């Protein structure tokens, strides 16, 4: 195996690394981490496998539906989704229906002060597990495949993170759920046997679909609309992965979408960047909910 250089800063540089070494993005990212930390491959993969276990535990916990968030507003949604899916009532069906339920489950566990893996942030923690775990069930993949997928996702997250903030407070929800969705789309493509280029195309397609999305948490809490955005994000990632895997390219490369995301984010007024003062957070219903919450305390 050719030695990978770990100095890449953009998605196109990461792609060049992988293509030069004839390896997957996941393998290039594993070598990047080895170069960064000096740890051996087994240690690096084991740490990722531990995070996969936390994701699985969070999904299982969320499906039980027995948690309630400190505000009292969140909990039990994933259980309802899963029940509807099992009764054959889901319209999206198959992997997508399961991905939506699992993503919501993990996001609910986060809102309810349970244990999760930020991916890339706590507010967007449901999207990757939703996509990866539903695909594992559908395809019968071993955990090793998912660990690879998480490294693919990390490659996208790092490439974006080196060029842009991953905070809703800086660039809106596009930088949280949008990036999570791009990470998950790339992971899905590589796990399914797509090329590194197709994986990054899927990430670009996914991120384009989120451009402009504001961060407007009701009451400033990671609850409304965050939890449902995680569910939507999982379905969105699967759609982007399907498009890229079918051979439809992204005309705009991921790095240029990231630049666009930064420009769009910077032009958002502060009210739309996690202050809880704009978007749906400013709606009359949101204000009434928060007033009720304050009076209850």
């Amino acid at each position, binding site marked *: 195996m050719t030695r990978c250089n770990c100095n890449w800063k953009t998605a196109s540089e990461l792609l060049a690394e992988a293509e030069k070494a004839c390896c997957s993005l996941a393998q290039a*990212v594993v070598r*990047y*981490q080895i170069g*960064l*930390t000096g740890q051996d491959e087994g240690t*690096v993969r084991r*740490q*990722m496998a*531990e*995070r996969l276990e*936390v994701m699985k535990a969070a999904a299982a916990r969320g499906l039980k539906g027995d948690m309630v*968030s*400190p*505000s009292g507003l969140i909990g039990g949604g994933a259980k309802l989704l899963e029940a509807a899916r099992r009764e054959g009532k889901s319209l999206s069906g198959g992997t997508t229906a399961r991905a939506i339920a699992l993503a919501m489950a993990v996001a609910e*566990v*986060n*809102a*309810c*002060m*349970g*244990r*999760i*893996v*930020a*991916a*890339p*942030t*706590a*507010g967007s*923690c449901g999207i*990757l597990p939703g996509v990866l775990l539903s695909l594992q069930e559908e395809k019968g993949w071993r955990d090793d495949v998912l660990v690879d997928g*998480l*490294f693919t*996702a*990390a490659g996208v*997250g*790092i490439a974006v*993170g*080196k060029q842009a903030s*991953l*905070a809703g*407070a800086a660039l809106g929800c596009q930088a949280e759920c949008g990036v999570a969705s791009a*990470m998950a789309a790339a992971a899905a493509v590589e796990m399914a046997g797509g090329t590194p280029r197709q994986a990054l195309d899927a990430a670009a397609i996914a991120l384009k679909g989120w451009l402009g999305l504001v961060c407007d948490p009701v*009451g*400033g*809490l*990671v*609850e409304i609309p965050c939890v449902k955005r995680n569910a939507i994000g999982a379905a969105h990632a699967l759609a982007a992965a399907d498009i890229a895997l079918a051979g439809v390219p992204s005309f705009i490369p991921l790095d240029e979408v990231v630049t666009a995301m930064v420009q769009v984010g910077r032009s958002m007024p502060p009210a739309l960047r996690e202050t*809880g003062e704009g978007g749906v957070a400013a709606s009359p219903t949101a204000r009434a909910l928060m007033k009720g*919450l304050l009076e209850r*305390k």
Partner: protein
Amino acid sequence: MDVFQVIGPVMIGPSSSHTAGAVRLGRLGRAILVGEPREAEFLLHGSFARTYRGHGTDRALVAGLLGFDVDDERVRRALDLARERGLKVSFEERDLGEVHPNSVLMVIKGEDRGVKVLGSSLGGAQVVVTRIDDFAVEITGQLPTLVAAYQDRPGVVAEVTALLADLGINIASMRVSREGRGRRALMIVETDEPVPREVIIGMRAWPVMERVITIDPV
């Protein structure tokens, strides 16, 4: 940028800044106090003041003060656990002036001493303690940190750095401040390797030293 900065940290939700960061601030408060806290008053500023209940910032701060880690499932039950352990806590919204929007002043009392710690959560679970009692500091809890309060006089800084050099301990950052010439001074030293406990005990015996503590990474 590390792989586990985008697939991680493993933490108790819902917010890296308002929950995980708050746990780390509480842990720093515990380390700075040294010993079991008995009473703590949290004065919450800005976004911390507005949203602390919904983000569980109150439970997270107390969890940290009890010594729990950011991914400890007990964070959720920290207020009950504090009561069981005889730790009295209170929360108040307070304008702390020109500080970061996510800031808290922790007034912590232990068995025989108290300490005031001002800290901020900067996002992505990164935190900084900016004030201990009346001293301006900068402690991030990412590296082992030595904090020494001493009498301001020539040569103390050199003695400390020489001691660390003899031990082969590399200094990552250092900050020295004082109340006034010849009065109480404070030294904050971040090191790549932890300073052994027996060395700390030895330093406490120096006549010039008022108090020496080490803070493990949180």
